[in-house]
């Protein structure tokens, strides 16, 4: 009997005695600033494991990739977030460490987005559930050398990869709603262009053609557009990172951006030449933001870009970035929308591409 009591003493867990109806998380207030505040449980089913009908966050595990660039995730363990529910009035679950707050916030941002998807014409069942891997072992040596300060969407595997922040931030990356939406935007772009979240990417892993580099930039550009337009914030990184190069309200132009052909011409001469897809992608995202400013309608701006991506995909050349720009303009109704796109195309892409459809408009 004594031994049994002693064993119970060793293994007994003193979890929260109250059932939570809310959990603490980062959110964005009406003033656009981040706050921590209690939010309703929504679809969250297990606070300790960070799991609900939208997906589950796992810790550790191994991400692998095949030659086609398809990703797979295995071996992740369940999260063990320590928390307490000590206020019988609010029944709010409060985590005992910052990582718990970050993980809950990540799920909460997905919850917010899931509720908005239908407003943007998307079927949430296409994208959810979607799991996440927290600090897994990564398949790429270059990625392993940069194991901090990042998040990613794994194409074909359809899951998120979340990495720990190296430097403490006011809003950690995985708790930044814009960064969560950026990664989700990759899932949307993948689905728009290949038709299935679990389908292979059109360009294999490590592909270094002009088309594949254009495609990766368009991936980033659409993801940035998706985040900025669904949040109505062109500088969604700012709460976590000071990145003026990614602020879509900035005066970015192709004059300062390396294009795929230029990169490929010099890549062989450099030992570790890595294509940076962001600067070119930012030009497309900034064009989407220009459209939002001209029409004063972020949802319409996203719909315009999404429709263009679908039409351009049907044309069959996913490496033809200029074709997407042309299609975008051609589909825009005459008036402020088309004027904005033509103005942006001229201002941001002058010297690299001329949109024929803008010739008679401006």
């Amino acid at each position: 009997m004594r031994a049994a009591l002693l064993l119970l003493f060793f293994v007994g867990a003193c979890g929260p005695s109250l059932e939570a109806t809310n959990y603490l998380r980062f959110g964005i207030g009406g003033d656009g600033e981040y706050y921590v505040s209690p939010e309703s449980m929504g679809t969250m089913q297990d606070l300790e494991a960070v799991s609900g009908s939208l997906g589950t966050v796992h810790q550790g595990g191994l991400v692998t990739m095949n030659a086609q660039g398809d990703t797979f995730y295995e071996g992740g363990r369940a999260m063990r977030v320590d928390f307490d529910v000590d206020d019988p009035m609010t029944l709010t679950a409060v985590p005992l460490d910052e990582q718990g707050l970050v993980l809950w916030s990540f799920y909460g941002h997905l919850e917010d987005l899931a509720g908005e998807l239908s407003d943007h014409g998307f079927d949430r069942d296409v994208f959810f559930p979607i799991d996440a891997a927290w600090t897994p072992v990564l398949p790429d040596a270059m990625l392993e050398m940069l194991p901090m300060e990042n998040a990613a969407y794994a194409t074909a595997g359809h899951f998120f990869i979340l990495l720990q922040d190296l430097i403490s931030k006011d809003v950690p990356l995985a708790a930044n709603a814009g960064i969560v939406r950026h990664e989700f935007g990759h899932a949307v772009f993948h689905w728009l262009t290949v038709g299935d979240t679990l389908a292979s990417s059109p360009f294999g892993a490590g592909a270094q053609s002009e088309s594949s580099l254009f495609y990766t930039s368009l991936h980033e550009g659409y993801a940035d557009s998706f985040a900025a337009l669904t949040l109505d914030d062109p500088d969604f990184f700012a709460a976590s990172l000071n990145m003026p190069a990614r602020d879509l309200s900035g005066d970015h132009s192709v004059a300062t951006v390396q294009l795929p052909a230029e990169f490929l011409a010099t890549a062989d001469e450099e030992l570790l030449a890595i294509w940076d897809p962001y600067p070119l992608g930012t030009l497309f995202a900034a064009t989407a933001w220009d459209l939002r400013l001209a029409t004063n309608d972020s949802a319409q701006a996203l719909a315009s870009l999404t429709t263009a991506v679908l039409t351009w995909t049907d044309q069959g050349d996913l490496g033809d970035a200029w074709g997407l720009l042309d299609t975008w303009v051609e589909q825009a109704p005459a008036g402020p929308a088309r004027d904005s796109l033509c103005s942006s195309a001229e201002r941001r892409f002058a010297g690299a591409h001329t949109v024929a459809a803008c010739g008679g408009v401006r």
Partner: protein
Amino acid sequence: MRGWLGLLLIALLPVGTAQAECPPVAPAVGVALGTVALHVGSGEHPLAPMVGAWGRIPLGAACYLEPEAALAWRSEGGEVASFDRRFYRAAVGLGCSAGTRATRVALSIGPSFGYRFTGIDGMGAPYKARSFSPGLRYRAGFLVPLGQRMQLDILAGGSTHDRVFDHDLLLQGGVRW
């Protein structure tokens, strides 16, 4: 890390200067200083400083009972949500040692009780969380007498709470008699 630990142990080994008339394990009390790797929700173990007090009650020539109490603290977060975390632990270990009078290798195990408190300042909005956790305390290391009156031990170990672990490395200094 292992290299540094090895150098530290090599430095400690010749330091043991117990006299022949001293028992291998003597009654002692003292303070502890070191670091603890505290488990967090994501499964990682960020480091925090740890201080504590300890005592040793001999049980025969080589074994002992060692009550200890420790406190660790860690601040984290940013302007939007700043965390003030405290970790208190009380434990009693039953240990045994082997070796020379100058330096002994020791192992101990016993029950522990942890109390965690976290205060979150959400830009003026305060939130609190507490957790009580019984668990298992386990340690291994070296007991090094310094003359007849002083004791310096280096012990690595950890404790469980719920289904997870914390790890610590403590330097214990004290008086023996």
